[in-house]
């Protein structure tokens, strides 16, 4: 299983049907011994990006599709940006607020289905960032799937004013959500 945080040389594999108009990087790699078959064997990603941030918490977003004929679960993720990554879902808590929390058991994507990772919704939470992620930087994200294989993609960083959601148990965490709201402060520099 690939656990390194360094950037890999990427093999651009364009997902079947994905429009290659925008130069978005869709990279699928697996470290299993599976030989490539004509039918899809793993997930594909597209339109991936990370919110630029000076330090603290941020998140990765994008679309993950499962073109295979079997359900696939993303059980964990690592990134080149920090040592701490969690898979988060958005839920309504007892007081009716939408909050985010780690999803138990990971994201299961049904055969033929897809998962949107987006601000205000499901996302890959990146915590403990110490080196700034600057707009235009590339962050490498590696997903570990339930069969032990990994899927790697590159997510360019973009300035984004949103994605300032509440986190369940905010008070107990060292980093509050204000860390994600860095853009407004930067503007005054």
């Amino acid at each position: 299983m690939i656990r390194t945080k360094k950037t890999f040389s990427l093999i651009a594999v364009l997902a079947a049907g994905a429009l290659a108009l925008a130069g978005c990087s869709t990279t699928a790699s697996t470290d299993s011994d599976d030989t490539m078959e004509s039918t899809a064997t793993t997930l594909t990603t597209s339109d991936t990006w990370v919110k630029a941030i000076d330090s603290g918490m941020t998140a990765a977003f994008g679309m993950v599709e499962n073109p295979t004929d079997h359900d696939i679960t993303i059980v964990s993720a690592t990134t080149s940006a920090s040592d701490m990554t969690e898979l988060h879902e958005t839920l309504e808590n007892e007081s009716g607020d939408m909050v985010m929390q780690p999803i138990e058991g990971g994201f299961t994507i049904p055969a033929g289905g897809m998962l949107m990772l987006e601000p205000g919704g499901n996302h890959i939470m990146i915590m403990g960032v110490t080196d700034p992620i600057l707009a235009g930087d590339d962050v490498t994200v590696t997903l570990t799937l339930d069969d032990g294989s990994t899927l790697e993609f590159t997510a360019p960083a973009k300035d984004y004013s949103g994605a300032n959601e509440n986190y369940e148990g905010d008070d107990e965490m060292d980093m509050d959500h204000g860390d994600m709201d860095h853009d407004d402060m930067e503007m005054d520099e």
Partner: protein
Amino acid sequence: MSEPVEPDTSRRLSRRHLLWGGAAAAGVGAATAAGVSIVGGTSGSIAPTSSGDATTAGFTPQEAFEGAVPFYGAHQAGIETPAQSNAVFIALDLRDDIDASGLRRLMGVLTDDAARLTAGQPALADSEPELAVIPAQLTVTFGFGPRVVELAGKAAPSWLGPLPAFGIDQLDPAYCDGDLLIQIGANDPLTVTHTARMLLKDARSFALPRWSQSGFRRAAGAENPAATMRNLFGQLDGTGNPSPGTTEFSEAVWSTDVPSWMEGGTSFVLRRIAMDLDGWDKIDRLGREETIGRTLDTGAPLTGTVEGDEPDLEAKDRLGFPVIPAFAHVRRAKENEAANKMFRRGYNYDDTVLTGAESVSNSGLLFAAFQADVDKQFVPVQKALDTLDLLNTWTTPVGSAVFAIPPGCQEGGYIGDTLF
């Protein structure tokens, strides 16, 4: 609640397909209006598309609005591309702390935005993706001022910098110069505005707007796109332009005698020319035509019958006076024209009237010209017009900027990558 989407057939259309429906359809020449649909809330699930949507059923957008102009290529789009109905020209100034590495990141982000938006797709992290689905021949063209070239440590073309001062100029610094030019053109004003907003948001941590100038022509589809534009004096503006797609155009526009990073590029001059419409009102039709040396209806030279006729500067009337007067705009321009003409791609502007001003108009021309070499093709003509051109009575240059337009890029590259 948030859950991965079930493989329901009605949901096999991904968000991308929903939002990119227009672009995908344009790519194959089909019109799937139902594909231009709205995605449901932010819960992470995807709203199924409704082919029976009352607002799209049976509606087929015209080519001028649905068509996408290829972004990648040897040259940037938005130059040889037929001029769209609406445009905005924006100059940005880089923040003081931006270095070469920041510049590369900036151009990478902006290039990706432009590539997606011109294809009718939302930019990455586009918070208003529904505004991106009508490309309307959108083009985004980037240009560099001297500071960008200096940051990259490359030699600048000899002509890159402010134009020489002209006697008729009354330049307002608020409309002059800049580090980075973004020219956005489309046949839909909302597409132009959304594109500008997206690019400026993404540029914000690198650069701030210095000026922004919006312009318009007749609406797309209202007349033959090959027709010469009319300015607010009612004149045909741009007669004699090299025709896109010809050798004449290539020789006139694409720079050759430039540093290697500029090969395949061109130069861009934007002159904001205020037009005194109130003063022009006092001039009768004959006087207006003699001022220019052309008729107003067809644009034919006073010595000819159709717009394309070459002006005969030697022709005399029965009293022996030149048919095209000595002070006529066309004579002054023509006599000082280089072998390679500049290519004009201008727009009208009509800004809000100034409170309390006597004039009821705040209007003019965004004189936009592309040429291989500013010093050889633009400056000599402007010098001649500066010293004698009756049209100067009613026109005043109030803004001026020159940019180097780098070549286009290939997929995976970015505009300006030849600098690094």
